[in-house]
């Protein structure tokens, strides 16, 4: 009764178990990193990556995290490490590091640590993690650097730990160049510990299954995942579609132009025609452009297939060198997420033409983070040399989200981040961190685009200080001139507004002073609608009116 091929069946079952285990190991690592991180965007939005690679630099498994910026940028990074340090030069106890924006995820704040794993002196795998730092020196996190040199400390690919010996010189240089040396040092060393722990788990598993390499496992994972993606791609209508999106930009509008082609065995996206590089730090390196564009596709095509070199390979993304989506050193890149967050909208606009019933309308997309500074630098009445409790300098970043686009079968989500996975901080926590008072934070009626399904609503946020002292606003808000567009006859969402309460309208970009006693008022954009509003279900319309979300 038992087939004599049962050994191969058994090996196959074992392979499936090992695949699950690899994913579990990197997920576990990502969660630990979130818990220990000092950087708020790591712990609140999962701005990190954890992945395992084979000795050829192929990514076998990656943790699903909250920001799409790492979807394939980590996958792209490890081969660079291996070309700097070929396997023959790696020894047990080594850990490599870089924060090169062009190797990993697009700005200096992201530090990547790669750690080889050895079994009987043979390299069998590498673990990599990339995490955002609280500070990396330079001007601080914002778009105001004129080149990458002003944006902070650059760490080329090098050994952070050499056969168990930590490179103290490097750590001292890092500590001497950042505003929060203890935290940054602690974070970086915790990546080493995290990679090492994952390595031990991998070796445990290999012992359990009597494996001495991951060759069979790696080949199977990559081939099956690639085939899985190809199968999804083959289900799509073939052809090329075009889309363009206009964004407010920093000082002038930015145009994202893209063409998406579905062929038999690949999806390719070309961003030719997009705006040239900006003098502000809102430019993207190609890795990062690919990550966000890839995410937009994967939300629609093959979302259930795990990220690895195999599943990423059938998607090809290009952008002309010198455009805002593919700059070279030393263009400034620090605040690249502002443009990056619109790339899913751009590529999904192409996919919508092929799959009209599967793709949502556009949403607010860009996070509305309120970055403010107060204290002696802002308020002349404070004494900088002798800061009292009231006179302390403070700097805060408060995340807020507008509405997402309506879906083909339901409304958009109100005040919800997409594509970013950021989590908003509770008002009570914010008010404990600095002398601010959030006077209002609630849904903004009528901000959504109407449709058979309406967009998600934006929100209104009102910020003042407890002692009515002035503060500086570092404005970085988009969709104040260009709304989230509706789809299939759905209406556009409302654009956002930045203003002083009962006062003047402010510029959505750049540094501005909020005078003593004034409050900042933000009206966040809503998502676009889907389908003709005449077809909206009467009960839903009534419910919206009853709840005062929509006035007619």
């Amino acid at each position: 009764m038992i087939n004599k091929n049962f050994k191969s069946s058994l090996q196959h079952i074992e392979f499936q178990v090992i695949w699950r285990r690899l994913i579990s190991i990197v997920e576990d690592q990502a969660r630990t990193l979130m818990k220990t991180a000092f950087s708020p965007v790591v712990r609140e939005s999962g701005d990190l990556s954890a992945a395992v690679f084979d000795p050829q630099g192929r990514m076998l498994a990656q943790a699903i995290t909250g920001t799409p910026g790492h979807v394939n940028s980590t996958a792209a990074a490890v081969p660079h490490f291996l070309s700097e340090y070929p396997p023959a030069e790696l020894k047990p106890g080594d850990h490599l590091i870089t924060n090169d924006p062009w190797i990993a995820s697009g700005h200096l704040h992201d530090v990547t640590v790669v750690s080889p794993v050895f079994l009987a002196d043979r390299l069998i795998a590498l673990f990599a993690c990339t995490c955002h730092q609280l500070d990396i020196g330079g001007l601080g996190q914002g778009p105001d650097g004129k080149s990458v040199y002003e944006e902070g400390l650059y760490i080329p690919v090098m050994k952070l730990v050499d056969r168990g010996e930590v490179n103290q010189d490097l750590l001292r240089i890092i500590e001497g160049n950042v505003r929060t040396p203890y935290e940054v040092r602690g974070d970086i060393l915790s990546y080493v510990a995290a990679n090492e722990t994952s390595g031990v788990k991998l070796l445990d598993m290999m012992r359990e299954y009597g494996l001495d390499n991951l060759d069979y496992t790696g080949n199977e994972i990559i081939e099956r995942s690639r085939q899985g993606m190809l199968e999804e791609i083959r289900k799509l209508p073939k052809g090329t579609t075009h889309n363009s999106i206009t964004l407010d930009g920093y000082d002038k509008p930015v145009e994202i132009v893209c063409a998406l082609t579905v062929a038999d065995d690949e999806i390719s996206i070309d961003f030719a025609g997009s705006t040239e590089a900006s003098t502000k730090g809102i430019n993207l390196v190609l890795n990062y452009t690919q990550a966000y564009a890839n995410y937009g596709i994967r939300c629609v095509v093959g979302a259930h297939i795990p990220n690895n070199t195999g599943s990423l390979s059938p998607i090809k993304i290009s952008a002309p060198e010198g455009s805002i989506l593919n700059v070279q050193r030393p263009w400034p890149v620090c605040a690249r997420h502002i443009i990056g967050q619109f790339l899913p909208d751009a590529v999904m606009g192409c996919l919508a033409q092929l799959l009209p019933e599967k793709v949502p309308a556009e949403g607010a997309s860009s996070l509305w983070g309120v970055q403010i500074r107060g204290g002696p630098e802002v308020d002349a009445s404070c004494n900088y040399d002798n800061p009292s409790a009231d006179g302390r300098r403070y700097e805060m970043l408060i995340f807020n989200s507008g509405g997402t686009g309506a879906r083909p079968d339901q409304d958009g989500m109100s005040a919800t981040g997409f594509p970013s996975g950021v989590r908003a901080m509770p008002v009570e926590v914010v008010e404990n961190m600095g002398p601010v008072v959030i006077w209002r934070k609630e849904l903004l009626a009528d901000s959504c685009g109407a449709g058979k399904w309406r967009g998600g609503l934006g929100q209104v946020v009102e910020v003042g200080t407890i002692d009515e002292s002035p503060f500086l606003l570092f404005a970085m808000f988009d969709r104040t001139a260009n709304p989230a567009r509706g789809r299939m006859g759905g209406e556009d969402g409302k654009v956002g507004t930045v203003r002083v309460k009962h006062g003047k309208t402010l510029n959505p970009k750049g540094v501005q002073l909020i005078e003593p006693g004034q409050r900042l008022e933000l009206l966040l954009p809503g998502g676009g609608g889907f389908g003709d509003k005449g077809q909206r279900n009467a009960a839903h319309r009534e419910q919206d009116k009853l709840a005062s979300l929509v006035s007619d």
Partner: protein
Amino acid sequence: MDRMVSLQGNLMADILSFGIAAFNSALYGRKATGRVPGLFDLQKTGMMVKSTYAGNGSSIQTCSTRTIPEYRVIQDEPGYLMSGEAIRIGIDTGGTFTDFALSRDGVFHTTKILTTHQAPELAIMQGLDDLMKATGCRPADAELIIHGTTLATNAVIEHKGARVAMLTTEGFRDVLELGSESRFDQYDLGLSKPAPLVPRQLRFTVSERLAADGSELLPLDLAAIEQVAEELKKHDIDSVAVCFLHSFINPEHEERAEQALRKHLPGIYISLSSRVAPEIREYERFSTTVANAYIQPLMDSYLKRLREGLKQAGFGCPLYMFVSNGGLVEVDVARQFPIRLVESGPAGGAVFASHVARIHQEDRILSFDMGGTTAKICLVDNAEPQKATLFEMARAHRFKQGSGLPARIPVIEMVEIGAGGGSIARVDSLGRITTGPDSAGSEPGPACYDLDGDEATVTDADLILGRLEAEGFADGSMRLNSEAARQAVRDKLAVPLHMDIPLAAYGVAEIVEEDMANAAREHATESGKSLTGRTLVAFGGAAPLHALSLAGKLGIKRVIVPAHAGVGSAIGFLLAPVAYELARSCHVRLTDFKPGVLNKLFKEMSEYAHGIVVSGAPGRERTEIRQAQMRYIGQGYSIAVDVPVGELLKNDAQSLQQAFDKAYINLYSKLHDGVDVEIVGVSVSVSAHLVFAQPAELAKTAVTAAGIPPEIDHGATLFDAQAGAYADVNVYSRHALQPGNYIPGPILVRDKGTTVMVPQGHAVTVAGDDSLIIERE
């Protein structure tokens, strides 16, 4: 201040009685003299070690180095003395069955009947009647009834609570809707967030505002509350939640709003956020308060009816409610804070496992409860299940974190994954076997139930592998159809995988076990604990079939399958202490340590918790555990560190720092030198064990005895994947096994409703409490 020392000092004096002492000595290897006036209480002082400081003032965070637990016998005082015939009854109202466990002199009698959803008290009265008849007891003999129920949970899940309104700070009408402004699934474009329990039109705002330090920025507009009261009348509101910003630090506005509402609406239920969950983070606090308001009228009337019914039936004894943190509270506390009844059933299972740990003297166990649809995993150290302070109710996607409504209540921390006997197995587009999270349930059920189910399930795989037998399933009430199982596994798995049926079935078992193992590993990492060296305690219908493979994957060498595993929760209720736990937020830096704030908070909380526990357990020894939530300034997650009971002094900053360092290293291996540490919250837990007797559960009497093997019931075959063939095994009937029996594997032990699989290379020993102890040889 040092409770532990005094307890140990009194240990010998407290140990009493000949019979009991003999038992105690047999059980724990201690010699004891004295006599027992009535009943006694066993408490493991190891659990108290956790709560106290050693003499030098440094906190003892864990007790993992202790191997031999010490127990003490506490003399009972008049209260709930258990006379010869006195009995205690545990009742667990679940979604399908209501389980009963009656203990008389430590001997359990159990039964289960179908839950009556419209009026759950009917099933309870019926079951009690059955139980009285079966045992020959009289209602008047009952000294205590302990009850846990899913009624509260279900009301939230099914949106069947009261018409509830919310009164909140102007400008913050949508806190419940905004939540964390994030999505719980990064790739699902079609996800829906859970709808708030109060629709927007019933969320009213009023002008008032407190600052972060509790001072008043805007006065409370009482006139506006009058208008809101009119609106509530108009809308026929039964229950209202009052939720103001920063009320956890200053409840005055909420309390004045309550008075004003009461004046206008005398009969209305009112829940204040400053009472229900007085902790920072408005979304969690408001969500908890609204849920409390939502279920309060329902639970109140149910508990009144139940109490009335019990009284009429002659049960004059007290009724206690089993709550989510594994403790007991009086009915009146439960009526005030019904939110604490949520998720109490699974907690009962964890308490049951802890009890098994206690009587088997297992320091570190992994509790593994696997039923028809889910598996629940809980870490239990020193017979104390791990606790958490946040729970998610009514998840839109049951196994996705963040898809539910948060409730900030003390709970036993468990991971629940969609892996049960009924979990459906499939092959996905990448050729991967997947199991669950959806389940075939009981109808149509697995293919082998022969109820027209054509999906292949874990149970079908177990049947094919020979782990489960076709005959004798569910106490012999059901015969499983092997051919239907084979057909389902062939069609859904073997054909797409190009495998033989038994190997495909083996693949299903492997995958479901790997999923559970990964969940356990990730849970352990998150908790900063290790799995190595733990003992697995397996209960629930499907657990004994998979426990040994799971243990193998986790490097666990010892598995205990306790008796009465099918009604574990109800038994757990009987073993739970009267306990109350509360938490408050605060902000204290260690570098600028001001003990006054902490002392005041601890004192208030401690008095409150002792007040609740003393009324539920008068005259009982109470244990108090104090903890501080600590973190490096700048971090987002905090960890719990034990704090001594008693006045804190300025120089305690140093010992707190040491305790934090130790806990942090334990969790994350490395410290951050030079970064300040802060306390962001404190908690107090007070508990008192009631009487419990267990002379029948002499777990240790015969563990090592190689007793005479019992008779083989019959023979069967079990699939051996490594050999690729079926091999003969002997099958024993569990009720034929005697304490002291020792049988090497491979064998099967057929039990009520399930089968215990003892693989090759393992052996089973029957313990004095009828537990099966399975160890790797």
